[in-house]
């Protein structure tokens, strides 16, 4: 375990991504400590530029953008982690069971997965949210969670199929181990990097989709989140009246969190598949190869001279 942590620390991308994500988590968890009042309270005159009292300015409704941002962080992270968990659980359960048990059950699950993969996601979610009407962040998390498991199911299924034919699984089967034990003790640990990638990817996807749905006005307008901040900013035509802070704060918040999660994802991918690495180890390797090449370029020259010498001798 400590070796694994060391590896995480050595990878610059992972450390940087982890730093960003942990900062956001700390902001979300200590939201009550960082703020002094309800985020939706009117505290100042509308559209105040950032100043000493309102460090991120105010909205057209006279709400403090800083307070909205802090509480919005908590909402977005909760929605992202919640939906990510649902997606990973459903996807992994379907994928592993289909890959392990096979047969008719596998055929049905694979068909459903493939259908879910070719149906356009966002338009469907839009229509669903519109029918539910003013969906709260929790409702949005639930509908995203229950509609986005297909990719995870497909990937874990194909990995399970590969694992299933490995000797150690067949040995466990011959030893008459119960199938639940084979799945949980033998197969799942070998899928951990894929499940991790799926979880991080799903969090990014959910946070993006939640913000999009709320920006379009399909969420609960009273909820405090980055998406409703964007929606209210757009409604107040904040950009055209020059209140850039109202738009910029949620945009940058989403972009930086997305970046942190993406770097974490990329790093885990590199650790699981060393060939994909871009970091300094390979740079050193490439440098060494160049040096060796340069050195070997010098030797053939000498060789040539000597052959030339041979030719002259003749």
């Amino acid at each position, binding site marked *: 375990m400590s070796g694994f942590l060391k590896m995480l620390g050595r990878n610059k*991308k992972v450390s940087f991504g982890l730093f960003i994500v942990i900062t956001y988590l700390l902001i979300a968890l200590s939201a009550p400590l960082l703020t002094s009042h309800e985020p939706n309270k009117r505290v100042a005159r509308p559209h105040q530029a950032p100043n000493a009292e309102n460090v991120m300015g105010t909205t057209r409704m006279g709400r403090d953008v800083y307070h909205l941002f802090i509480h919005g962080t908590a909402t977005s992270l909760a929605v992202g982690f919640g939906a990510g968990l649902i997606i990973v659980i459903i996807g992994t359960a379907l994928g592993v069971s289909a890959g392990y048990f096979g047969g008719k059950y596998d055929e049905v699950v694979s*068909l459903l997965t*493939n*259908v879910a*993969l*070719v*149906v*356009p*996601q*966002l*338009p*469907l979610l*839009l*229509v*669903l949210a*519109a*029918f*539910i009407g003013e969906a709260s962040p929790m409702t949005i998390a639930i509908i995203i969670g229950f509609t986005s498991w297909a990719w995870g199911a497909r990937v874990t299924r194909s990995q399970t199929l590969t694992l299933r034919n490995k000797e150690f699984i067949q040995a466990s089967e011959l030893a008459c181990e119960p199938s639940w034990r084979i799945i949980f003790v033998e197969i799942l640990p070998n899928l951990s990097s894929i499940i991790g990638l799926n979880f991080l990817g799903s969090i*990014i996807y959910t946070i*993006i989709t939640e*913000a*999009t749905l709320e*920006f*379009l*006005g*399909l969420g609960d307008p009273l909820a405090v989140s980055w998406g409703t901040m*964007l929606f209210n900013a757009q409604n107040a035509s904040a*950009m*055209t009246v020059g209140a*850039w802070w109202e*738009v*910029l704060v949620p*945009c940058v918040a*989403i*972009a930086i969190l*997305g*970046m942190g*999660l*993406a*770097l974490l*994802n*990329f790093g885990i991918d590199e650790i699981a598949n060393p*060939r*994909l*690495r*871009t*970091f300094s180890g*390979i*740079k050193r*390797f*490439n440098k060494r190869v160049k040096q060796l090449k340069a050195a070997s370029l010098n030797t053939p020259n000498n060789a040539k001279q000597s052959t030339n010498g041979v030719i002259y001798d003749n």
Partner: protein
Amino acid sequence: MDFVLRRLGFYLIAFFFAATFNFFLPRLMPGDPITVMFSSQGNPLPVESIAALKETFGFVDGPLYEQYFIYLKSVVTWDLGSSVKYFPQTVNEVLGRSMVWTLFLVGTSTLISFFIGSISGIIAAWNRGGWLDSILSPLSLVLQSIPAVVLALLFMFVFGVALNWLPYSYAYDIELDPAFSWEYISSVISHATMPIISLVIVQIGGYLLTIRNNLINLLGEDYIVMGRAKGLSETRVMFNYGARNALLPSITAFAMTVGVVLGGSLITEVVFNYPGLGNTLFEAIVSRDYPVIQGQLLIMTLAMLSANFVADMAYVYLDPRLRRD
């Protein structure tokens, strides 16, 4: 041939699933679907066209399976009724008008990102660990995780509002009449620039990473060594030996991205008030124009399915192993 038929069968089933979902969606929702669906907010519909619309969607008296068959018939004959909001225009007219713009946005941005993304991915993989690779690969992952809505808003703010370089609303200058003139065409191009750039940024990272990761896995293969041993130029080995084989998964990625691009295009169109399918869907949802929503979902499903089918066909053409059996 067997493969093609099997895929076609699958797409038929998928379309059938989507259509069925469309049928049950309004019926599962709380409240009376008919009042929700056909109560238009602006112009009231004539009684007989409401009746015709209800029949199109299978809202007739009778058991559910009868309603379902009437609905399926109207989907198969593509008789989607008329729009509630833009009455008396039919759904086909409304969608046909906006589809051109979406095809323009999605098509152009997909082509640009496929070429630029793939070529830079190939170069990044070939010089793995070089400066280009260590900048482009993490960057494309980061760009991929920035939502289209944020990109579009930031572009609009920086280049539209603050710098005032490019127009940021609608598809062309409304004072101009659509005509085949330089003035009109240049107006269309300048209005499309920001939406297209945002869409390119949304998808380009995916193409770059897919081909990079595949090519890296192929670098040690014998035929690459063989190409080098024959004394071929580095570019020849890179493109004709390496990239050619690494391209196959990019084609699957292309089919998968169509869904992402349709979603991205939807939000980009809303932000830039671009008169494409996405904006039409959004307006239809806001005004509860159910016939248009319904037609939209079917068209977008068909678009996804055809993209997947094109990818399948490309696979059969490019990968001889699939043709053998």
